């Protein structure tokens, strides 16, 4: 636990102004980042040997509720094979805004970002081919949004 706490300090010292929120719960560290700083911070996280997050484990979306502002959260899980640490990054975004893509940093972000777009309608700026990944191309609506009914609009 103590090592985790110092890790949090390191992040705050390094990226302080871009971290909107830092949270530790059940031994897991979460940083909420400003959208515009996402790509530059990710680049440092991957390349700096002190962090060395070479592996992007997962990206997923969360709909914080129809009323919430910003409504969506994009959650990144990173892993460092050398330090054996996990890190969770988040950016928050509204429907009419975009998130910068991280495909230039971790190529496997491609499908993950497509899935978030497919399920939540969050757009990623600079993504090589943002498309529906799991749903049919002509599908209307974004199934994992909270206002999307479980059985779909057509019942």
């Amino acid at each position, binding site marked *: 636990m103590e090592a985790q706490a110092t890790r949090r300090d390191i992040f705050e010292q390094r990226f302080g102004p871009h971290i909107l929120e830092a949270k530790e*719960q*059940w031994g*897991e560290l*979460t940083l909420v980042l400003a959208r515009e700083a996402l790509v530059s911070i990710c680049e440092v996280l991957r390349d700096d040997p002190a962090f060395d997050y*070479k*592996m*992007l*484990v*997962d990206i*997923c979306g*969360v*709909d914080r509720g129809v009323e919430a502002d910003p409504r969506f959260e994009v*959650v990144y*899980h990173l892993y460092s*094979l050398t330090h*054996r640490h*996990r890190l*969770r990054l988040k950016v928050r975004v509204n429907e009419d805004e975009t998130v910068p893509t991280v495909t230039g940093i*971790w*190529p*496997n972000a*491609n*499908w993950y970002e497509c899935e978030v777009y497919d*399920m939540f309608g969050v757009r990623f700026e600079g993504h090589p081919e943002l498309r*529906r*990944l*799991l*749903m*049919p191309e002509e599908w209307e609506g974004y*199934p*994992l949004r909270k206002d*999307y009914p*479980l059985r779909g609009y057509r019942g």
Partner: protein
Amino acid sequence: MAESEVLLEVKRSPLETTMMMNMGPQHPSTHGVLRLVLTLDGERVVDAKPDIGYLHTGMEKLAEHKKYQHVITITDRTDYLNAMGNNLGYVLAVEKMLGVEIPPRAQVIRVMMAELQRIASHLVWIGTHGLDLGAMSLFFYAFAEREKILQLFEAVSGGRLTPSYMRIGGVMADLPEGFTTRVLDFCREFPRALEEFDKLLTNNPIFRMRTEGVGYLSAEDAIRWGVTGPILRASGVPYDLRRVHPYSGYETYDFEVATRTEGDVYARYLVRVQEMRESLKIIRQAVEKLPPGPVKSDDPRVSLPPREKMLTQMDALIYHFLLTAEGLKVPPGEVYVAVESPRGELGYYIVSDGGPRPYRVHIRAPSFANVQALPLMVRGQLIADVVAVIASIDIVLGEIDR
């Protein structure tokens, strides 16, 4: 959609040098409903584009509408070859949020089941891998062995493919009488079957020609593309969650993490076969160390009280009512828990808003990441090698599409 109904679609570029070919989604070697759009130059693969989503059933959406206890049955159906392992990952995530202590006997049973499931999953892989490459007899031997494991699952849970055996706070029920003897019998007989597979494949010249040097993936690329499991280990990275981030007491078992450095289809074959041997070792140790005691936590927040107490004591009755009518009280927050599935890192990201239903469940499926790296492995190879490479990734579309 109309496009996918055409089995073979030929498009020619202006120079007529490359051809597009549609492989799947109903192709026997794609192990489900994976569709590949191949760009070919003669028989060489210039590029491959996997197209997924044919098996999307909205499991993550459904999970938001179920109580925490009920989501376990959904996890069975994601990666249907690793139902026990999925159960384990999910219940570990919920238990982490609740801070529940698991009795030692339940821990050992969980490990035993997860490893039996790993062997069963690898048996499907080895059987279909052989089948794809023309070694048909192996398929029957492998499935005969897998049947024994499924019968063990049936004995403990009543289900063969979808056991839903693990529960939040422990496992569904204690092992039936004579179960450990049956497991030990299996452990005694199975090495003979493994030797037989060995004879059929390991030094089989046809099998080796079809697999050695095929579908190469470097360690660096594997990490860049988030590839985990046997594929990553076959590229020389000894990353096994059971060893680097032990859960359920894996740190107390003696086993090797199988690795190779060649990074080809053959290396993945060797890694998985070695893993089956290591799983056997773990199962034997689990049987040896199986302590007596309860198999479910007595924490009233997660476990129903015993029937007699419920009928005679007021507080037990209240807990029973609250648990069944209202569900679990999981504190708000979020958690990511990963376990080593037969295919790699299986992660559960759960967000709780304090209610009886998870606010969001995301399943980090290992096959999803692995199949995304497929183009890297097949570029420059022959069409026939694509079949070998898909088999070596050991995809399960159920967890890719969810």
